[in-house]
């Protein structure tokens, strides 16, 4: 076994069309400016892809990027990122996943894997420390993610597989690694379009060592202590998993009910994490390594299967008007086995239900009824009948049948399970998120609803926090570690922990310019420096996060994205909810204008030349 | 019995016409100052011919303001001077008063036909853009939000131009 100290900086670059394999050496400047994981992946694609290319064509590249923490044993570092151009949004998409593939890729000595071109026949790739082998996958074609993984991934290896949905180019097909997924943006279809059924990584040849072992150990202890002490990571999520959000969302009236018509439902608590834990005997089933332990499995309908995450519970549950956790778990299993993103699938089905109700199309699906949902999910995965149209997502459907006002998507990506009419900051985050209706670019529901630090209906300061968290989340995703550590690392740092909540929230809401610089996110920077040995000021570290946001934005603007696309469905902008007597809607225009200014974009949301230059992003001649 | 029906001479509106005259003076001088310093206005007037003259006036004849392009910048030519290439006419002193006291935005004034343009419309559009930038200098943002559809952006360095206009441009015609 060999050691890698810090980062290996070798990225495997595979062209399927020619079967040529190259090794790209990451330059020190790229490492410093784009950190790793998601950020580095975007930069690699930025240098190699031209605007307007077909996401399902040969030219598209998909990059799998384990971060710098991967393999070091840092808490919650079992995550890796994938970056590509999404068939669903036709924009850049990034996704992160806690499956075993990342660790194996990293310990095979690779800091990244880029796949381009198209294989002639169904193929799977075996990545080892030596390079890559192209293997025949015709026998695997058509098989679900579970049995394919069983068949080709040997003990101790890690794999990525697509299900039938990916093979059939469903626009929101995902990629499985174990029971975790690269969920959003239709990455499964990108692999499917390349005729790649699976990528298996055989790791273990390298050991990853931090550059500064002593500092690293100290940080690890501190991080673990933060995670264990924190109410959310050390208790709520650890006990109940992410479905613990259900109760929190009900309190804040942001649970999507029946295609975002309402924010609460009397049966809501039936699908909460607490209930599920009590009645379905859930136990840990998590990413590795992890200190939060939010992933669960349990007995649903008599069978022990992975428990649905919050987003699945919300989108395939309350958003369809179904409050039966067994059915939701079963649908989650169908999605998982066939390789469908549960958020987009749920959003699309909810749209179909409402469109059927309004007479825009004929459909057997109705709100509140589980009938036909399993069949619809299978139809989507297999591109059968109306499934062929549903497979393109709610935006495409609404363009054909009408009903864009209640197609709950942004830029083509279906919204995650938080109603921004109860969390204005999240509304802004959804509208401007680079990959579309994404809750992970900046999770303001956290501050506005879960922690109560920001007033959910205030406009003030929201743009500041969306900007700050977008950048910080990019830093986290480039390390890469779990975004949930944010709860622990930010809230448990001494200044935050020992300031009374009332003062903290007053300061945060009223004086963001003072509050934000006081937020202590140094632990992320310290982890980065300890592992890579590259010293960096906090300011420079966060600026890297800015850079990652802006380069992704810039790539999207080259695809034609501007202010007109940074919007929310009319339902959120113009329609109040029954549960809200004040009939509040998201005041997006005001929020967005301020956000653009803070980000250094012009009034149309295009990064100004000044901003691009300031961040050191190279401009390619087109 | 014969009714006595005499000629009636309406009085004058001294206060309002004084206000409008003053604003014309301020506008004229600040046009001059801004055209020297503001790059957006410079870019706009680049397309105008040398010697291009525009006039703003209140129906029927006065008060008025004439500005001419000379050597690449705009020069305030006072209130007398006959014809111009482009004339913007307020239909009444009341309309001019509404606009100049920021009770009514320029775009609304056009929409309500309080103002008419005679001359080349595309030049008028260019002039309106300059006027918008100028208003951004002359009025604070909260007023601009009310009178302009979308106030032009005002980076920090433009505060110097604003100061110049207020301290030197308007009082001394520099």
């Amino acid at each position, binding site marked *: 076994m060999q050691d890698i100290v810090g980062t290996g900086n070798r990225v495997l670059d595979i062209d399927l069309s020619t079967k040529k394999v190259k090794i790209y050496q990451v330059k020190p400047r790229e490492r410093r400016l784009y950190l790793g994981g998601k950020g580095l992946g975007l930069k690699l694609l930025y240098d190699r892809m031209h605007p307007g290319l077909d996401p399902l064509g040969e030219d598209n590249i998909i990059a799998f990027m384990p971060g710098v923490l991967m393999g070091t044993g840092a808490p919650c570092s079992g995550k890796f990122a994938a970056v590509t151009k999404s068939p669903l949004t036709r924009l850049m998409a990034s996704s992160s996943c806690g499956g075993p593939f990342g660790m194996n890729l990293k310990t095979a000595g690779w800091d990244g894997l880029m796949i381009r071109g198209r294989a002639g026949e169904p193929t799977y790739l075996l990545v080892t420390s030596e390079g890559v082998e192209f293997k025949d996958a015709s026998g695997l074609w058509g098989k679900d993610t579970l049995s394919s993984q069983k068949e080709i991934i040997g003990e101790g290896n890690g794999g990525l597989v697509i299900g039938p949905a990916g093979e059939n180019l469903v626009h929101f097909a995902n990629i499985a690694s174990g029971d975790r997924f690269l969920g959003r943006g239709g990455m499964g279809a990108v692999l499917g379009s390349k005729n790649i059924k699976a990528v298996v990584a055989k790791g273990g040849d390298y050991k990853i060592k931090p550059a500064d072992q002593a500092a690293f150990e100290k940080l690890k202890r501190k991080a673990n202590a933060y995670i264990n002490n924190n109410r959310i990571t050390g208790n709520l999520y650890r006990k109940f998993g992410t479905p613990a959000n259900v109760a929190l969302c009900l309190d804040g009236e942001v649970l999507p009910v029946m295609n975002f018509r309402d924010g609460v439902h009397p049966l809501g608590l039936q699908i909460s994490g607490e209930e599920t834990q009590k009645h379905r005997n859930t136990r840990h089933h998590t990413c590795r390594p992890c200190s939060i332990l939010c992933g669960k499995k349990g007995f649903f309908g008599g069978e022990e299967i992975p428990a649905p995450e919050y987003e699945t519970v919300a989108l395939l549950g309350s958003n369809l008007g179904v409050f039966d956790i067994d059915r939701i778990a079963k649908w989650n299993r169908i999605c998982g086995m066939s390789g469908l993103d549960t958020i987009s699938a749920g959003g699309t089905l909810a749209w179909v239900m409402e469109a059927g109700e309004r007479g825009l199309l004929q459909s057997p699906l109705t709100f509140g009824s589980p009938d036909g949902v399993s069949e619809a999910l299978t139809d989507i995965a297999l591109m059968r009948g109306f499934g062929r149209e549903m497979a393109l997502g709610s935006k495409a459907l609404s363009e054909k049948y009408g009903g864009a006002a209640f197609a709950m998507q942004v830029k083509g990506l279906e919204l995650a399970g938080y109603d921004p009419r109860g969390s204005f900051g999240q509304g802004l985050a959804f509208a401007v998120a680079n990959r579309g209706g994404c809750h992970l670019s900046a999770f303001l529901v956290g501050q506005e609803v879960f922690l109560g630090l920001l007033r959910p209906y205030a406009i003030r300061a929201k743009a500041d926090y969306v900007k700050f968290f977008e950048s910080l989340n990019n830093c986290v995703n480039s390390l890469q570690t779990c975004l949930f550590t944010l709860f622990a690392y930010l809230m448990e740092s001494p200044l935050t922990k020992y300031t009374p909540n009332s003062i903290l929230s007053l300061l945060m809401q009223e004086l963001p310019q003072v509050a934000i610089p006081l937020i202590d996110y140094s632990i992320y920077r310290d982890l980065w420096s300890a592992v890579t040995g590259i010293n960096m000021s906090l300011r420079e570290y966060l600026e890297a996060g800015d850079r990652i946001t802006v380069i992704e934005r810039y790539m999207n603007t080259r695809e034609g994205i501007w202010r007109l696309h940074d919007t929310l469905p*009319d*339902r959120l902008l113009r*329609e109040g909810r029954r549960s809200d007597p004040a009939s509040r809607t998201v005041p997006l*225009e005001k929020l967005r204008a301020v956000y653009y200014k803070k980000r250094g974009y012009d009034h149309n949301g295009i990064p100004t030349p000044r901003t691009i230059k300031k961040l050191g992003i190279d401009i390619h001649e087109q | 019995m014969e009714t006595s029906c005499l000629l009636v001479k309406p009085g004058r509106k001294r206060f309002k016409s004084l206000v409008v005259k003053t604003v014309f003076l301020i506008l004229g001088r600040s046009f001059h100052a801004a055209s020297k310093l503001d790059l957006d206005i410079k870019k706009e007037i680049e397309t105008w011919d040398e010697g291009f003259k525009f006039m703003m006036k209140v129906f029927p004849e006065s008060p008025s303001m004439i500005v001419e392009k000379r050597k690449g910048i705009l020069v305030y030519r006072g209130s007398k001077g006959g014809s111009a290439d482009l004339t913007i006419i307020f239909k009444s002193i009341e309309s001019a008063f509404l606009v100049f006291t920021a009770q009514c935005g320029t775009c609304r004034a056009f929409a309500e036909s309080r103002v008419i343009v005679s001359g080349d419309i595309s030049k008028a559009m260019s002039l309106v853009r300059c006027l918008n930038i100028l208003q951004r200098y002359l009025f604070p943002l909260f007023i601009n939000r009310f009178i302009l559809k979308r106030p032009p952006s005002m980076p920090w360095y433009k505060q110097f131009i604003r100061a110049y206009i207020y301290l030197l441009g308007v009082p001394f015609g520099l």
Partner: protein
Amino acid sequence: MLPSYYEFYNPVKIISGEKALDNLPYELNRLQVTRPLIITDKGVTDAGLVKTVIRAFAESGIILGGVYDDVPSDSSVTVVNDIAGVFRRNECDGLIAVGGGSPIDTAKAVNILVSEEGDNLFQFAGHDVLRRPLKPLVVIPTTAGTGSEVTYVAVIADPSRKVKMSFTSAYLYPRLAVLDPRMTLSIPPGITAATGMDALSHAMEAVTCLQKNPISDALAMASIDLIGKNLLKVVAHGRDEEARLAMSNAACLAGAAFSNSMVGLVHSLGHAAGGVAGVPHGVAMSIFLPYVFDYNMEKTAPDLARLLLPFGGPEEYANTPPAHRARRTIELIRALRQSLYDLCQLPRTLKEAEVSRDKLEAIARTAINDGSLTFNPVEVTYDDALLLLREAYD
């Protein structure tokens, strides 16, 4: 909502319906015209429409002062001077314009020359330059789109100086507009569709732009109602007299509405696309409508929502929740464009209209100098216009 101030003027008498044309001699007599000059173009003559007009004068005792049928599609100063000469030589005392936008604009310009007794058209260019009432002008539109029969604008090209002169004056209103279904029966589907979308854009912009007022709103709403019900019908079945007459009425209503409420960004872009890339006006209107409405949505959502009632019909309106109506209106416009594309390949994008991508910058630059931009509810800069054009490109 009532505007704090508005103006409305429209003095045109309209006669519409079956055999409307045959009442023309009576109307001319009322206007004291004894020797009218007919101004038209070759297309109209070839379609036999001029013959129908002349037939209407049988037994009337009115002698026609001539038929000038050589108006080109882009009318110029030379033609206007030419016709003014004919008018004077033949001692005519009134004008009858038969045709689409071009013969009507030409007739208006001729009227300026012969009434003001000048010979240099240029001196009358601009707004409110005319100082006296003109000679009686009767307009018989043969397309259902421009609404020029009820507007006070004429645009004439001056090829020697490469500019388009525009004349606006309350005196330019025709005295009479004759809407006779026979005059529009033979228009081919492609032009029917484009002109119909032109009328729709007039009406819809009249309701959504800044100079809107209750009277123009009422006219525009009535127009949209007729277009919603009849446009697809006339494109599919050109000989449907009732639907044809409905479209003529719609165009006329829309014309009366927009000449008092003005139009906005759809027209700025349309004029520019026409000027720079030669996109026919109606086609450009059809292309830009939904994109511009998306752009203007932030300010015009309530107005767009109101449009759903006449455009989609009461059932559609009632079935759509209030918050969704504005979006639904745009969707129905898109659906209509799609149907027209299926019926007669009416372009939906600039690419389909064969505009090359490198012209977008020039179109944007021209568009922001178009006067109609003043009346658009949302500010439009060069950058905005360019992004919007890219949006509408493919």
